[in-house]
């Protein structure tokens, strides 16, 4: 684990601004900032990897640049997932790695609750295919132009309930599925 990428961040809003920018100089942030000069990109923090935020309108273009730019060459998509922040919407998170340069970057983009749609990263890496299918069914995110928008782990007909959202109940998943499959709670009784 590279400790020199370690950034000490505090929870205090006012002081953290200055501190983060100072310590970001030790990370790959200057490089990323230069490569992505045409995109609105904000650094967040790096506990071991640098985290950047990119608005969703630019995200696919930015990922294309990150993959194809000679200086960074993020040719490997480690992981793609989402985090539900309840009222603050859903964050889609991309973990990128550059095999030739041995550097990591985490890219985040925020989707508002009412419109969870984003472009598909399968245009950039084929690896995103199944990862996006899983993220879509778990969080109800629509990946526009996805080549294969079926469910991956969930049943084929389970397209209206999204298990990993915080609003989804933890222990009632069977009942929700049962209703979908025609299970009638009224006639079956409540003996369980």
């Amino acid at each position, binding site marked *: 684990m590279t400790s020199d990428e370690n950034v000490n961040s505090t929870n205090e809003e006012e002081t953290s601004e200055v501190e983060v920018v100072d310590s970001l100089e030790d990370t790959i942030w200057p490089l990323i900032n230069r490569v992505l000069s045409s995109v609105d990109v904000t650094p967040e923090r790096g506990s071991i990897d640098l985290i950047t935020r990119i608005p969703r309108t630019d995200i696919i273009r930015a990922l294309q640049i990150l993959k194809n730019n000679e200086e960074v060459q993020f040719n*490997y998509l480690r*992981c793609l*997932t989402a985090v539900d922040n309840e009222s603050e919407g859903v964050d889609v998170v991309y973990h990128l790695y550059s095999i030739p340069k041995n550097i990591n970057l985490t890219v985040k983009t925020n989707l508002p609750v009412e419109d969870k749609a984003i472009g598909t990263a399968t245009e950039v890496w*084929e*690896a995103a295919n*199944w990862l996006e299918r899983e993220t879509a069914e778990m969080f109800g995110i629509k990946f526009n132009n996805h080549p294969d928008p079926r469910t991956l782990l*969930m049943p084929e007909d389970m397209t209206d309930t999204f298990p990993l959202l915080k609003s989804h109940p933890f222990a009632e998943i069977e009942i929700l599925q049962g209703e979908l499959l025609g299970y009638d709670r009224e006639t079956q009784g409540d003996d369980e």
Partner: protein
Amino acid sequence: MVVESTPGFETQDLLINVGPQHPSTHGVFRMVLEVDGEIVKDLVPHIGYLHRGAEKLCENNDFRQGVGYMDRTEYLASHNAELSYVMAVEALAELEVPERAQWIRMILCELNRLSSHFMFLGAFGVDVGVFGTPFIYAWREREAIIDLFEEISGDRMMYAYFRAGGLAWEVPGNFEERVREVLVSTRQGMKDFDNLLTRNEIFLARTKNVGIISAEDAVELGMSGPTLRASGVSLDIRKAEPYMYYDQIDFDVPVGTNGDVFDRYLVRLKEMEQSVHIIEQCLARLDDGPIMPERMPRMLRLPEDQEIYVRTEAPRGEYGIYLVSKGGNKPWRLKVRSACLSNLQALKKMSVGQYVADAIIILGSIDIVLSEVDR
């Protein structure tokens, strides 16, 4: 004599369903093959039969309980799966793991790699058609390692032995002696496999130039572990981004050249020799000392708004944990990055254009664990 095709005679492609209950799919995996005679024209994988919602479960349990769920995601290499998870919690909680605990962890993880690869060798032998012998050989060697794990953790699988901060309890007094014993039998087992398979003509005929995937495609598809290295990409997280004490250890990363089924077999066999080499060095460095930090909080609470993506080199590839904390004693979000899921994406590319019989050994060569794919 040249047979002329009959005018008006049409052939139809045949759909074959394999799985989910099928001995050669290594678990509940289903694939629908479209075949033209003996040749696979299309392959549609179906997964999710073993989905248990491990991520949601972890979000609703506290940090200590998560270790048990990690075991169950990767039941053939539980120590490696636990390692990513405890490393993520330790990094956010800023726990300093004592040296002795780290060395023991390294030994156990490498032993687990050995036992997992033995499992692969045995099952793969059966897939290829060398029925019986390799499977029994592999089981014999794997048994020795699992016996050792049982002595340490009390379980043959799902060890739940790693804790955030260190280890659950001290290893038995004869630990070093027992590891050395296991290494002797492991060495012999590897030699047996080498003699049995590596130069076996039937084995070579079945595996050479089958299911080739190029280095570019492998990287593009996000493959990792021995399956990626067989294509010639030398990416091993232990070397690229050393964690624990791998930077103080001398070992090589075996790399294949063709990216075919045989290379995936050979890379694993060579990797096992390196694991033995690593364990020997770890044993030499093992010293007395504590196995948990001195100042261990009674209740683990992580700071607010922190996140980390920890990746380690598990036997099947990159096992990653993405942990988001919003304070409290539960993870806000826990994502398990499964190596098998990404490797399995490449199955279609490897199998199209190959024989039906080879589709089975191609699947076997990826070495999937369905509980890790589905989580």
